[in-house]
């Protein structure tokens, strides 16, 4: 079982857990990414997530299928949210269930690492001083002029 989605409304982590857990699974892992208040020493008030939605969804599904091939029997649900998120809101949730804990843990880790590396999603941080910057993990942040 694999389900991936790009969503615009709050992610419900408990729903994802329930979705992947069955009487045949014994271990479920959940990874949740949340908006935090500081990045590179700057006070953040929110993050605007945007995506190349069609490709992001396909790439998430490719990653989930790769996880499924590597860790036979995993059940996977992945949601990535887009739009403006405030502090502590969930940007991504990855739930993985398996009969045994090792594949559930390893597949969950594989998926978040690949998602960060490959899924076309971007974030623009909004700072306390009103400035904004696109987050570029390959470089230092690029300031954006405020509209």
């Amino acid at each position, binding site marked *: 079982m694999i389900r991936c989605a790009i969503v615009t409304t709050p992610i419900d982590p408990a729903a994802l857990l329930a979705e992947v857990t069955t009487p045949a699974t014994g271990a479920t892992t959940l990874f949740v990414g949340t908006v935090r208040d500081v990045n590179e020493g700057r006070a953040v008030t929110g993050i605007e997530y*945007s995506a190349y939605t069609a490709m992001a969804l396909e790439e998430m599904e490719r990653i989930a299928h790769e996880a499924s091939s590597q860790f036979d029997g995993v059940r996977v649900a992945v949601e990535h949210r887009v739009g403006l998120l405030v502090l502590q809101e969930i940007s991504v949730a990855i739930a993985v269930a398996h009969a045994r804990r090792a594949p559930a843990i390893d597949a969950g880790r594989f998926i978040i690492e690949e998602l960060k590396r490959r899924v076309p999603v*971007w974030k623009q941080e909004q700072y306390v001083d009103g400035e904004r910057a*696109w987050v570029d993990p390959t470089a230092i942040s690029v300031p954006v002029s405020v509209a």
Partner: protein
Amino acid sequence: MTQLQVLLFASYADAFGSGTVTVTVPEPATSADVVTALRSLPGGSVLPAAPVLAVDRRYTRGVVPVHAGQEIALIPPVAGG
């Protein structure tokens, strides 16, 4: 010569002032032609030495042929999660 539409996102869309730009490229065209054409447009200086291109929602590597009808997109450094 032919015209191709290229999708832009995030910092690239900001730099080019649009989420879609049209480039004029030789025919048959390659991904390298698309990048060269983009560099000559206003905002083109934002592009790194080797920008990442996706065709039909898959990443490409190296120089690949492209043609009208494909979904061509330039992918800034991703920052999801």
